[in-house]
C-alpha cells in the first residue's frame, strides 16, 4: 500500500512538474524526439540497406563452377561429393549442358543469340551455395584447382563485389553503433539537464522533504518518473514523424531506383515503434537516474 501511495505521489508530482516547467519540458521532448528521429532514420536506412544486401547476398552466396566439356561425369560427381562434404557448403547442384541451355534460351534477351549458333555452346555447371559470404573465396579457389573446371572462365566469383559488400556492411554496422552511442549519450545528457532544472525549481520542496524525513528515493521518485515520461513522449513524437515519412520515402525510392529491391515493410514499422518507445523510456530513466543521483542527496 505504501509503495502504491509513493508511486501515486511520484506520478502526480512528475506530471505537475512537467507542466510547471513547460518550456524546459518541451525543449527536452523536442531534442530527444529529434535524436530518436535520427536514430529511427538510421534504423530504417539500415533495414532498407539490409533488404538490398540480403538480396545481393542471396545472389553472391552461390558460386557457379563451369564444367569443361569432355569432363567425365564420374569426375563431376566426385567433385560434387567433395564439395558437399565441406562444412561451409550448404548445397550443391549439378546443372547439365542441356538444362543450362534451356535456362539460357528461356531468357528472351538470349533468343537472337541462340538462333545464330549451332549446337550447345554453354557449359554444364555446378552451383555451390555457401553458408557465409566469407566462404565464397575458398570455394572459388578449390574450383579453380579442379581439373574438370572450364579453363577460360572457371567460376563466376566476383571477388571485389563480395569483399566490398562485406566491408561496407562492417563499416555501416560500426558507424551505426557509433552514431547510436553518441545519440544515447546526448539524450541522457539532455534528460539529466532537464532534471537538474527541475531539481533547481523544486529545491525548497526537496529541502523540506528531506527535513521531514522523506527517504532519498521518495524524493527522487518524481524526477525519475518525469524523465521516463519525457522519454516516452519524445519517442511517441519521433514514431509519428517516422511513420509519416517512411511510406512516401519508400515509394519515392522505388520510383527513382527501381533496380534496387527495396519495399515497405509493415512488420519492421511495428518493431521500430516498439524499439523507439523502449529506447525513449530507457533514455529518460537513465538520464534522470544519473541526474537525481548527482543532484538529489540527503
Amino acid at each position, binding site marked *: *500500500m*505504501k509503495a502504491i*501511495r*509513493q508511486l501515486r*505521489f511520484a506520478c502526480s508530482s512528475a506530471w505537475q512538474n512537467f507542466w510547471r516547467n513547460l518550456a524546459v519540458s518541451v525543449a527536452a521532448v523536442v531534442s530527444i524526439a529529434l535524436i530518436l528521429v535520427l536514430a529511427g532514420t538510421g534504423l530504417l536506412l539500415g533495414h532498407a540497406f539490409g533488404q538490398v544486401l540480403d538480396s545481393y547476398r542471396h545472389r553472391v552466396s552461390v558460386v557457379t563452377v563451369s564444367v569443361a566439356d569432355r569432363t567425365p561425369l564420374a569426375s563431376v560427381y566426385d567433385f560434387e561429393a567433395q564439395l558437399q562434404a565441406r562444412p561451409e557448403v550448404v548445397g550443391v547442384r549439378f546443372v547439365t549442358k542441356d538444362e543450362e541451355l534451356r535456362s539460357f534460351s528461356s531468357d528472351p534477351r538470349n533468343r537472337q543469340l541462340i538462333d545464330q549458333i549451332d549446337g550447345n555452346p554453354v557449359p554444364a555447371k555446378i552451383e555451390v551455395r555457401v553458408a557465409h559470404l566469407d566462404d565464397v573465396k575458398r570455394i572459388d579457389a578449390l574450383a579453380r584447382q579442379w581439373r574438370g573446371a572450364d579453363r577460360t572462365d572457371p567460376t563466376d566469383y566476383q571477388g571485389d563485389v563480395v569483399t566490398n559488400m562485406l566491408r561496407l556492411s562492417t563499416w555501416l554496422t560500426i558507424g551505426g553503433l557509433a552514431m547510436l552511442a553518441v545519440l544515447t549519450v546526448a539524450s541522457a545528457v539532455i534528460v539529466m539537464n532537464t532534471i537538474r532544472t527541475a531539481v533547481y525549481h523544486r529545491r*525548497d*520542496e526537496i*529541502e*523540506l*522533504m*528531506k*527535513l*521531514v*524525513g*522523506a*527517504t*532519498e528515493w*521518495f*524524493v527522487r521518485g518524481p524526477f525519475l518518473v518525469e524523465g521516463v515520461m519525457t522519454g516516452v513522449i519524445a519517442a511517441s513524437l519521433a514514431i509519428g514523424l517516422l511513420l509519416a515519412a517512411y511510406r512516401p520515402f519508400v515509394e519515392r525510392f522505388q520510383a527513382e531506383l527501381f533496380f534496387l529491391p527495396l519495399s515497405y515493410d509493415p512488420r519492421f514499422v511495428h518493431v521500430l515503434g516498439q524499439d523507439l518507445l523502449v529506447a525513449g523510456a530507457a533514455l529518460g530513466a537513465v538520464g534522470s537516474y544519473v541526474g537525481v543521483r548527482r543532484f538529489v542527496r*540527503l
Partner: protein
Amino acid sequence: MLVAPAFDSRPIISFQRVWKTYPNGTDALRDISLTVPNGDFLFLVGASGAGKSSLVRLLIREEKPSSGRLVVDGHDLGRLPRRHLPHFRRTVGLVFQDFKLLPRMTVRENVEFALQAVGEAGAVIADRAGDALETVGLAGKERSYPRELSGGEQQRVAIARALVHQPRLFVADEPTGNLDPATAWEIMELLLDINAAGVTIVMATHNREIVDATRRRVVALERGQIVRDIRSGTYDEGNSSAAVRLQ
C-alpha cells in the same frame, strides 16, 4: 491536541567532546560537551557566528561532527547510516526563522505534505494534520495560502507541520526572529505548551526578552565553545557567580 511522548529517563541529546571543523579550517564548534534530559527546554544563545547554527545543523544531522560523539534520541549521529537518516528526522520537529512553507500549497496542504512525504495513509494524514492545526490555533485557516497569513500565523503552520510526526525533540532555529514582540510571545507560549506536553525543545535565539522572562536553561556559545550553561538563566548573565554550572 498534544500527545506526550513516552517517558524515557535517558538524556535525549548528548554531545561528548564534539568538534565541528569546516573544510576551510574554521572550527565552528570546539570541544562541546552537553547533555539535555528528556523533556528539557533549552535556549541556545550567543552572537552571530558563535556556533548556534552549526550546533543546530549537527542536531538534525545536516552536518556530521568532525570528532567526538553526538547521540540524539539513541542515534549516534556520527555513525548513522544514510538509509536511517529519514527515520531519524521523523523523530525531530524542525522550525526555522523563515518558516520554510511552500507558497503554492494551502495551510492544510503544507502540514499534510510532511506526512505525504513519508508515505502515510490518507486517513492518518487527515487526522494528524487536523489535530496539529487545532493545536496551533489555525483550524479555521486551513484553506488559506501562506501569503494570506501574518508572520505569526505562518510560524504556527510551520509548528503544526513539525508536530504531525509527534516528535520527541523539537529544534527551533530563531523561530521568533522574523516576528514582532507580541507575536513572538504567542509563538513562545505555544512552544512552552508543547514542552509542557513532554517534548524536549532546543531553541536557538537572539530574543533577549523571551529568554529573560521565561527563565529556562540557557546555554551560551562564544567562538564555538560553551561559555555558560545555567539551569534558570537569562540572556546575559550579569553575575556569573550565580550561574549553576550543569556540566
